[in-house]
C-alpha cells in the first residue's frame, strides 16, 4: 500500500462530510503522511494471531425482562432542532415528491 494516493473525495463521500476544496487538498496530504506511517504494521508477523476487538473480557450480560420507565418525551425532544407540535422530530423530506409536510 506504500505511497498509495488516497481518493479523498471518495472517502469523504463514505463519511458524509462536506469538505471545502482547499481543506480537502490539505487533509489528503496529511492523511497520506499518516497512512505512510501506519504502513509500518506490514512488517509485523501476525501469522496465527487472533484479533483483539476489545480491552474487556466480553461476555453476554442479561437483565431482568421487566417493564421499566423511560425518559419523558418532552425531555428527549428538547434537543431536537425541529419538532411537530412537540410530539415528533421534524426531519427533512426523505422521499422525493411534491412539497413537504
Amino acid at each position, binding site marked *: *500500500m506504500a505511497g498509495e494516493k*488516497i481518493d*479523498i473525495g471518495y*472517502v*469523504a463521500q*463514505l*463519511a*458524509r*462530510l*462536506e*469538505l*471545502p476544496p482547499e*481543506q480537502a487538498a490539505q*487533509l489528503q496530504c*496529511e*492523511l497520506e*503522511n*499518516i*497512512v505512510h*506511517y*501506519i504502513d*509500518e*504494521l*506490514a512488517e*509485523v508477523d*501476525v501469522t496465527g*494471531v*487472533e*484479533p*483483539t*476487538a*476489545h*480491552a*474487556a473480557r*466480553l461476555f*453476554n*450480560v442479561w*437483565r431482568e425482562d421487566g417493564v421499566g420507565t423511560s*425518559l419523558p418525551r418532552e*425531555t*428527549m425532544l*428538547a*434537543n*431536537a*432542532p*425541529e419538532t411537530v407540535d412537540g410530539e415528533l*422530530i421534524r*426531519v*427533512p*423530506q*426523505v422521499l*422525493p415528491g411534491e412539497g413537504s409536510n
Partner: protein
Amino acid sequence: MEKNLSSRTLAELASGLKAGEFSSADIVRSALDAVKTRDTEVKAFLGVNPELALREAEAADARRAKGELRSEWDGIPVGIKDNIAVKGEKLSCASKLLAPVVSPYDAMAIVNLRKFGFIPFGRLNMDEFAMGSSCENSAFQKTANPRDVSRVPGGSSGGSAAAVAAGLVPAALGSDTGGSIRQPAAFCGVVGMKPTYGRVSRYGLVAFASSLDQIGPLANSVEDAAALLAATAGADKMDCTCLPNGCDDYVAFAREGAKTPDLKGLKVGLPKEYFGSGCSPDVAKVLQDTIEKIKSLGATPVEVTLPHTKYAVAVYYIVATAEASANLARFDGIRYGDRKEGADLIDGYFKSRGAGFGSEVKRRILLGTYVLSSGYYDAYYLRAQKVRTLIRKDFTDAFKACDVMLAPVTPTVAFHFGEKSDPLQMYLSDIYTIALNLSGCCGLSLPAGTGEGGMPVGVQLMAPELGEARLFKTAAALETALRK
C-alpha cells in the same frame, strides 16, 4: 497566605467540613470566585451554573446539619469534562455540532458521584470529541497551562487538568482514550489516573473509541484520585462492558501507602522500550531520580520488555479512528445538535457534519473510514487488531516479572501553543500513554519533578487489570517520599 478552599485537597476539605471551619457553600463560592478571576486567563471552564451549584451546596450543608452525610466528601464540587453527561447541563464535547445540546440524564459516573455527595461543577474544556493532545482542538477556546500560560495544558482533558492545577476546583473528572487524562495531568503537575478498562461505566460518556475510552479522576493527591475513583467505579447494567467485579477500598490503600511509604519486596518493572532516546534529557533525569527514590523505599527495579511498543501509535490511530468514524456517524443534525439545511436529506448530513466538525475530527473520521473501507480493511483494521493482541500479551508477560511498571508519561514537558502543527508529530507525542489503553490495564501520572522552563514532569505507574489498589498504594508511597 491561606489557600483558597477550591485549591485544597479533598482530604483537607473533608476534615474542614467535619470540623465546621467552613461550609459546602463556602467551597462552591470559592470555586465560583476562582472561575471569575483566575479562569479569565486559564480558560479551563466552558461554563458554570452558579445557582445550581450553590443550591446543591446548601442541600449538602443541610444534610450535614441533620447528620445524614452521604460520605465524608459530601458537599465538595468536582469539575466535569464536557463529554460526560450531567442532567440539565450542556454536553457539547467542545464541538460546534453539539453546541445546543443539553443532557437529558446523568452519566452513571455522575449518578455514582452524587451518591457520595460530590457536586458536579461546570463544564470543562477539551479537544473536540476528546481528539487531541493540547486542547487546541476545542471549537470554543484555548485553555492555557496554569504553570505557564504560553504553553498548552495537554489534552484532551486539558480543561480538567488546568482547572485542578489552577485551584479552580479541588478535583475533576476526565476521560482517557489514549492518554487524555495522564498526559494533561503530567503537563499541569497534578495526579491523573486511567482506571482499568470497564472499571467505570461509560454510560453517559460521549463515545470516541468505545474499546478504549475510560472515565477517570484528576486531583491534587493520590488519595484524592482514589476517593474519586471509589465514588465513580462499579458495575452498571447500562454498560455491558462495565466490569462486574467488586471494588477494593482504594482510599484505604492510598492512605496506607502514604502513612507507611515502604515498598519492600515490590518489583518495579522498567520497560526498556520506554527508556530509549525518545525522551528529552529533563524528563529522563526526573525519571532516573524517581527510580532512585523507589529504591530508597525498598523496591527492586527490574528491566522488563514490551517488544511491540514501536507499533502502538500506528495500532492506536487505526483502531481509535475506525471506532470514532462509526461512533460519530450518529451526529447528523437530525435528532439533536446544530442542523444545517441541505438540498435534500443526504445533502443535509454533509452540510451539518461539514460545518459542525473541526479539522482534527474530520481528519480522524476520514482516516477511520479509510482503514475500514473495502480493500483496506484487512491490511489496516484487521492487522491492527492482531497487533493489538500482541501488545496486550506484552503487558501480560511483563507483569509476570514485576508488580507495577514505571515509565515516562510524555517525551517532553508541556509544549507551546502552535508548536506541533503537524498532526503526525502530535500523534507521536502520545507514544508512552497509548499502549496502556490498548492493553486495558490501569495507570497513573504522578508529578515527580520539574524540567525545562520549570515545567512539571510526571512519571507513569502502570498496574495489571484491576490492579488499582496496588497502583494507589505504590503511588501514594512514592508521592510521600517525593514530597520530603
